[in-house]
């Protein structure tokens, strides 16, 4: 329960922080994606599954027009990462960056298909595709920052 609340509070903080980034910047870093990847690498499906869906819905509450879109996208992403997590060295920092790269592309793809299959309006795919290069860049930057913060946090814990 403690872990659940920790992730939810962190997710809420990330989602609210994203709303404060001006839209004029064209692309915003997807901070919740980093959280989903961490969940996929560390948490079992019983906790990680519902949590990733909840985090997606949290983002939906602050973005877009329909609740559940990002819930579905993040759940699929979580399950994909979870399915290969056993074969990966979750301690490697390079792995997280690779996962950020791959999951940004996958997220775009899942979004296009989800919107294409379920939504009546079909021009989002163009925006998703054009935003992918910028999104990759800012997400990798955010990933680097995330790794740095994790390193500082673990050093601080050891110091305590």
């Amino acid at each position, binding site marked *: 329960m403690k872990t659940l609340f920790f992730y939810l509070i962190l997710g809420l903080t990330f989602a609210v922080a994203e709303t404060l980034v001006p*839209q004029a910047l064209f692309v915003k870093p*997807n901070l919740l994606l980093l959280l989903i990847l961490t969940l996929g690498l560390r948490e079992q499906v019983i906790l990680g599954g519902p949590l990733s869906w909840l985090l997606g819905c949290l*983002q939906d509450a602050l973005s*877009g*027009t329909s609740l559940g879109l*990002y819930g579905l996208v993040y759940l699929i992403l979580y399950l994909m990462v979870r399915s290969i997590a056993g074969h990966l060295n979750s301690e490697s920092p390079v792995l997280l960056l690779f996962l950020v790269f791959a999951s940004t592309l996958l997220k775009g793809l899942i*979004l296009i298909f989800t919107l294409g299959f379920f939504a009546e*309006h079909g021009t989002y795919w163009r925006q998703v595709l054009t935003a992918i290069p910028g999104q990759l860049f800012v997400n990798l930057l955010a990933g680097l920052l995330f790794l740095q913060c994790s390193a500082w946090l673990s050093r601080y814990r050891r110091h305590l």
Partner: protein
Amino acid sequence: MLELIRKYRTPLLVVCLVMTALLIYSSRLRKQPETTLFEKAILQLASPMQRGFDTSTSNISNLWQHYLWLIDTSQENDRLLGENRQLRNKLDQVREIQLENQRLSALLALREQLDIPTLPARVIAEDATSLFQTVIIDRGLEDGLHEGLPVMVPEGVVGRIIRCSARQSRVLLATDASSAMAVLVQRSRARGICRGRGQSLTLDFALAKEDIVTGDRIITSGNGGIFPKGLTVGNVSLIQTNELDLFQSVVVTPAVNFSRLEEVLVLLENGP
């Protein structure tokens, strides 16, 4: 006599001197504006000396104050820098208030123009992702808002409310891909549907035979029950026609700069 003078030499000299001084003084009192030759000569002589003294003292003073005794200068510099910073801050605040005043005046003028009751609101946050085009305003159910109400600024249509909580609402901008509104070309009255494309708009279902040219103003048609008739949407910026197509492809540049939304007006009743 000489003996007497010699005897009282000193007192007599004193009296003569005093009398002379008095006489000269009293005679000069009547001719005050004139400068005597004596005065002129003295002034002429004194002038280079005074200048030299003045220059050298000011040089010494400068040397002392600017190169040797700098404690006061340093303190004064710090004080002036602090004062400068404060004044700059105040100036920035005044400029910001001035700009806000201009925006609010424009909003007020629009409010007075419209027959429909309106409610001003402030944009407090933007969409959490860069894919969707929504903003959050600081008014909600408690202020009488509900889903579907149109939102605008003096330049034109902003969008409509899609989510409402007690004190906040989310507005779907006209440029979002899921946004669509019934519009018409103001000049030729050609009808169509304006859809969002992220940064611009497209005019869909405009028949190829319709008279539309670049620069035409697009306004809301009043159909659809959301936006009242006659609100500015944007201007036609690109037209592509194909002989085989039934419709022409029209790109519309929005009248509103969506990246700089700060204060908006919510129309409380959907007019005809």
